[in-house]
C-alpha cells in the first residue's frame, strides 16, 4: 500500500524533502516502519532519534499502519 510521509525539522534537511510516498507491506507496525526507513534511506545516516505521528497523533511502536494513514516523522521538538 502507498503511504504519505511528512518530514519536519532536521529530518527534512537530512532527507532533503518534506513529503514523499513509500510502498509498505500491510500490517506493518511503527517499530518495523522505523527500521524500514533506516535500512532504505541512507540519507538518514542512522538518525533514529524521532517519533512517529499517524494522522496528527503520536503513535506507539506497536501501532499498525493502515492504508491512507498520513505519517509524520517528528524529531525532538523545540518550540517555546
Amino acid at each position, binding site marked *: 500500500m502507498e503511504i504519505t510521509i*511528512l518530514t*519536519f*525539522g*532536521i529530518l527534512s*534537511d537530512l532527507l532533503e524533502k518534506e513529503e514523499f510516498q513509500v510502498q509498505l507491506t500491510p500490517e506493518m507496525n511503527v517499530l518495523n516502519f522505523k527500521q524500514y526507513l533506516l535500512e532504505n534511506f541512507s540519507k538518514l545516516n542512522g538518525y533514529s*532519534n524521532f517519533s512517529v*505521528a499517524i494522522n*496528527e*497523533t*503520536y503513535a506507539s511502536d506497536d501501532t499498525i499502519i493502515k492504508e491512507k494513514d498520513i505519517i*509524520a516523522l*517528528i*524529531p*525532538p*521538538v*523545540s*518550540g*517555546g
Partner: protein
Amino acid sequence: MNERISIKVTSCPLKLEDAYNFVEDPSCGGISVFVGTVRNETQGKKVLRLDFSAYEPMAIKEMEKIAEEALAKFSITKIAIHHAIGILSVTEIPVIIAVASPHRKDAFKACEFAIDTLKETVPIWKKEHFECGEVWVNAHP
C-alpha cells in the same frame, strides 16, 4: 472548541494583549502570563535569529490537549496558548501563555505546566542562526 481555550499558531507577531484580553474574567483574581522571548545567546554563542517551523494541524491539536489537561488538573477559568512561527529576532516573542483563575496559585501552576508540556510535546522546531552556521535545537541528544 472549548470556549475557555484560545489556541493560535501564527506567522504574525504575537501580542500580549490578545492573550490577556482572552483570559481576563470577572470571576478571576489572578492572571499568570508567560512570555518566551528570543535570547541573544545560547551556550555562550551569539544568536542572530531563530527560525520556527511547525507541523501546524498537529501542533494545534497538541496545544488543545495541553489546555484541556490544564483545565482538568487546576482550578482555572481560561487559558490561552499562542505560538509564532517563522523568523524571529532577539527580544521577539515565540510563545505566550496566559491563565486566569479565581486564586493565583492555580494560575501560576497551570501556566508553568503548560509551557513545560508545550516544550515536550508540541511539534514545533526551532533552528538557531549564528554568525557562522545554524543548528536545529534539541535534534541531537
